[in-house]
């Protein structure tokens, strides 16, 4: 008879307990879904139902085209207003999954006579899918441990800031649905592997296809699953279950993924996909060898067979390398390669290195996004090592790979977050299991000292216990505990906890006393509450800003909305002809196309580096050099973002060096980065700024008439914290057209050529009544200043 730390109700029938637990599970999942959606609505409540940031504006615009013109038109959409004058084949250069998803939802709602605006569907798509992510994480974790860990994992991923950062309402980006697809594909893969079912393998392949259609990050699945399969092969865990699961996933998934036009024949032609193909081939060889082995008994023949398997695998690898070398298989693309060689992007593709979310991650970002999960994570991984079934191997590999990637690039924190939630939930629910279980062990006085050592030693000394055996023993434990006399509720708790300690089923373990239990459980609840506070604070303060609308607070604490972007974009929309070409740095291309509906030279789909470098060159050259470039590209308006007045740090002067660098990559003779620094090598905009800097179009457009705002006082740039020269720059080839309320957006009109054929500089000087001195051409410039 076991002693118990606290009494359990013993008059419940087993059926009641089962039904109540499943009801509680459903209720808990419903609440988790509710919390996941609700916590993402800060942006809508604090601001309004608006599309956020940059890329979502393009997705939103594309979705509107899809809904208005139908899928066929969308597929063949050529957008002449982007990348003026080149245009963009949108249908073939886009991952259509996101737009198709909201299009389908829109059609369904309208078929039900629910006239929901497409914008609201786009805004609320990410929160909606986050509840599906929570559910699929629950399913995934359930396969690893049990339902209680699954519920914890679902709750974690529902509110963890690392995932919220990319899925708040209005953040209508590919990642919004991709994480759900990622987790659900992984769940189906695990399920297929566990059961050896081609059905689940095919489901995994179908969701893989959805993922391919939705996000470029599908390459993560394309490499994770082969890596897992390969690791299992190397551990000597080949099984027909693995063969069936992998083959069905790969065959169906690859064929399906090739139907996406943007992907096309990449699955057989690029290095990113070769791991999947190679492992597929290897599996076929091994399966064949296993087949032969089961029919042939000669020992020598088997040795020969193994040698030939290894030889064939080796040959296959060589063949892939050879094909890559010959150019039949494209090598790693720069984006992918820069994950391994971290200096690569900065050197060769500055445009990738210039994006802020491609920067490496410092530790505060990890803590901010994951809080206490970050230290439960390694503990959870160790617990995976204790069990080490096939699916645990998957989590371990995922943990290593994702934590490396998240360290290299801030944006890949998103792929790390699910595995952190899963591992942390395993660790946390083990703690709870151990300390909630009311069963107290017997206390044999004689082996008090040695048992602790034993427990560790037993784990270390028989590490290579084959899984089936440990599984069986666990089942045995479950069976035995089920037949004990602790009542149905106690059974449930005991069966949940017994999984951890299956190896020595008969040895007593557990926690003595009630106080110890209370200490740990209160502590755990405290940590959970702190986590919820943290998540709420981070979400409401850091991740819910639409970045189209900025918020500041008035002296009395009330919120003040800074709406300069929309003010300027609507000015463009209402005051310029529809064909007016707007030049800006590429960050704002999608927003201009979406909100102002005007053609742009470059946008966030950074496919043409030379075109971007052209804009960079125009921005970083003097007016005289930039003017022909502007005219040749039919530019009517130039838009710059300037934060100096209100201290908005993400402005163009802070991005300016990247423009210079990108332009330098194409025109190294004309643009040189060091020329934009002062003699001491500092980046300054005050009196000490270098002449090249002061003459650049970007500098002139940013600080044009800025000093006048201070009425003779010292003009201060609040972002850089530097004094702006009192005599500001002058413009001859551009005219100030519009400056928004807080000076964040400044729009300049490009002047047409002078009617009398003079160059605009002398025409301007003439208009100002300054007489041109024929004798000394050099003094012309002086007269202007």
């Amino acid at each position, binding site marked *: 008879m076991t002693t118990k730390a606290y009494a359990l109700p013993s008059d419940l029938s087993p059926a009641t307990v089962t039904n109540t637990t499943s009801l509680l599970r459903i209720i808990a999942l419903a609440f988790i879904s509710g919390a996941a959606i609700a916590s993402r609505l800060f942006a809508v409540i604090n601001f309004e139902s608006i599309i956020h940031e940059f890329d979502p504006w393009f997705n939103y615009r594309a979705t509107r085209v899809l809904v208005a013109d139908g899928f066929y038109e969308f597929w063949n959409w050529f957008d002449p207003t982007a990348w003026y004058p080149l245009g963009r084949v949108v249908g073939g250069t886009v991952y259509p999954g996101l737009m198709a998803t909201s299009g389908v939802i829109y059609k369904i709602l309208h078929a039900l006579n629910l006239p929901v605006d497409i914008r609201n569907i786009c805004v609320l798509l990410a929160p909606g899918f986050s509840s599906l992510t929570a559910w699929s994480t629950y399913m995934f974790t359930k396969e690893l441990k049990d339902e209680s860990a699954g519920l914890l994992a679902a709750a974690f991923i529902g509110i963890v800031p690392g995932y919220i950062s990319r899925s708040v309402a209005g953040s209508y980006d590919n990642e919004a649905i991709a994480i759900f697809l990622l987790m659900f594909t992984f769940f189906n893969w695990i399920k297929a592997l566990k059961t050896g079912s081609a059905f689940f393998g095919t489901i995994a392949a179908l969701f893989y296809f959805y993922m391919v259609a939705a996000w470029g990050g599908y390459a993560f699945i394309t490499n994770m699953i082969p890596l897992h399969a390969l690791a299992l092969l190397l551990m000597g865990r080949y099984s027909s279950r693995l063969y069936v699961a992998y083959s069905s996933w790969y065959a169906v998934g690859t064929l399906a993924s090739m139907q996406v036009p943007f992907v096309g024949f990449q699955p057989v032609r690029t290095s990113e996909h070769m791991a999947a193909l190679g492992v597929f081939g290897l599996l076929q060889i091994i399966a064949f060898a296993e087949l032969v082995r089961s029919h042939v008994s000669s020992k020598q023949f088997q040795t020969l067979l193994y040698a030939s398997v290894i030889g064939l695998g080796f040959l296959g690898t060589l063949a892939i390398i050879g094909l890559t070398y010959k150019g039949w298989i494209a090598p790693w693309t720069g984006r992918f390669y820069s994950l391994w060689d971290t200096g690569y992007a900065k050197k060769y593709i500055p445009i990738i290195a210039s994006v802020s979310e491609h920067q490496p*991650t410092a530790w505060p970002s990890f803590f901010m996004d994951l809080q206490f999960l*970050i230290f439960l994570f390694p503990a959870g*991984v160790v*617990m995976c*090592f204790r069990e080490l079934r096939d699916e645990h191997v998957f989590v371990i590999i995922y943990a290593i790979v994702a934590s490396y990637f998240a360290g290299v690039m801030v944006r890949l924190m998103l792929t790390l977050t699910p595995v952190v939630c899963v591992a942390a939930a395993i*660790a946390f629910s083990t703690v709870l299991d*151990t300390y909630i279980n009311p069963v107290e062990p017997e206390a044999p006085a004689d082996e008090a000292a040695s*048992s602790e050592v034993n427990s560790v030693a037993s784990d270390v000394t028989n590490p290579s216990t084959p899984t089936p055996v440990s599984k069986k023993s666990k089942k045995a434990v479950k069976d035995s505990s089920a037949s004990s006399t602790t009542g149905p509720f106690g059974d449930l708790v005991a069966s949940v906890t017994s999984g951890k300690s299956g190896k020595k089923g008969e040895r007593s*373990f557990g926690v003595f006393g009630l106080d110890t239990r209370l200490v740990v459980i209160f502590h755990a609840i405290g940590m959970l509450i702190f986590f919820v506070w943290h998540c709420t604070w981070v979400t409401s303060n850091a991740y819910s800003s639409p970045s189209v609308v900025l918020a500041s607070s008035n002296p009395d604490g009330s919120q003040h909305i800074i709406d300069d972007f929309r003010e300027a974009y609507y000015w463009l929309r209402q005051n310029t002809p529809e064909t007016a070409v707007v030049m800006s740095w590429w960050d704002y291309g999608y927003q201009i196309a979406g909100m102002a509906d005007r053609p742009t030279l470059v946008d966030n789909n950074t496919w043409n580096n030379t075109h971007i470098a052209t804009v960079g060159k125009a921005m970083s050259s003097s007016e005289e050099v930039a003017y022909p470039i502007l005219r040749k590209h039919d530019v009517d308006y130039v838009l710059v973002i300037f934060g100096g007045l209100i201290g908005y740090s993400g402005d163009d002067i802070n991005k300016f060096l990247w423009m210079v660098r990108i332009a330098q990559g194409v025109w190294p003779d004309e643009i040189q980065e060091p020329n934009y620094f002062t003699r001491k090598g500092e980046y300054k905009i005050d009196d000490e700024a270098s002449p090249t800097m002061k003459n650049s179009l970007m500098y002139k457009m940013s600080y044009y008439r800025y000093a006048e705002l201070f009425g003779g006082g010292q003009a201060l740039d609040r972002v850089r914290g530097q004094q702006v020269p009192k005599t500001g720059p002058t413009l001859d080839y551009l005219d100030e057209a519009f400056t928004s309320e807080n000076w964040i957006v400044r729009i300049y009109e490009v002047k047409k050529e002078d009617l009398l054929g003079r160059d605009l500089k002398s025409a301007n000087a003439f208009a100002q009544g300054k007489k041109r001195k024929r004798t000394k051409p050099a003094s012309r410039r002086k007269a202007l200043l």
Partner: protein
Amino acid sequence: MYLLPLLSFLLLPLSFVVAKEDPHAELVKLAAANKGVIPLDERVYNLLTSPKRTWSSSVQFTALDPKRRCSPCKEFNPSFNQVAKAWQKVPAEQRDTHFFASLDFDNGMAVFQKLGMQSAPIVHVYPAAEGPRKSPSGKTSPFTYDFSYGFEAGPLAESLSQHTPVPIPYKAPIDWGRWATVAAFGVIFAVTLRFIAPILQSRWTWAAGTVLTILIMTAGHMFTRIRGAPNSGPNGQWIAPGYQNQFGQETQVVAMTYGLLGSAILMLTVVTPYTSSPRRQRAQVYLWSFVIFIMYSVLVSLFRVKNRGYPFKLLL
């Protein structure tokens, strides 16, 4: 009567050629005598960068004297010399149209002052000002090499090749020491394979490796690697100011904190329940709970230092 002017007329181009060839020949000689790097002083510098030059040149401005305490100069000098040496392999007709030269601060203070240089090392590339190699844009002012790619010879050669008549045939020397180390480790591995096989096959070896990797990565090791962040700041400061920034020591401290917290959780779940003496088990439970609470407080207060606006705190 006519003969004399005629003769002088004939001699004129000759003398001109001699006068013009003279600095170039001198530079070629100097380069050949010094393994491709011309040691400059003020006179030779003016010769090399004369406004009528038909050649281009890469000039390293440096300060190698130990009393100048310029450690980057010492770090960079070998790279520059290697690239210059590689340039010597180019056929003479092209080689002699581009020179490598080095000006030490102690030999040409006047030049440093004239150019307003306040730091070293700096590499300038002077394009040809006249002759067939004059740049099409007519630019004669020097290019400055961008040190953001580091002090290695590879990127330097690649970057300078844009200004030389033919690309610099620089190949990174084979690092024999590294290959030898790899080979030695390979041999050691093969020999001891039989003894270490049980270790390699143990899941706990892999677990340790995995957990260490995870701890290091989540503590921001890759940030310090990629950004080349120093181990600690000036005057012993070990916490870098700012949320998006960190020092090498922070990685260690944070990884250790995470590790301690994680292992305390593990102790509570894996070890403590197997302790069969109630008294000792209770002590363990309280101990590890206390450790978690304290370390978590430390971690949060560390985070508050990095992120000033963070409103929560535990004990500390």
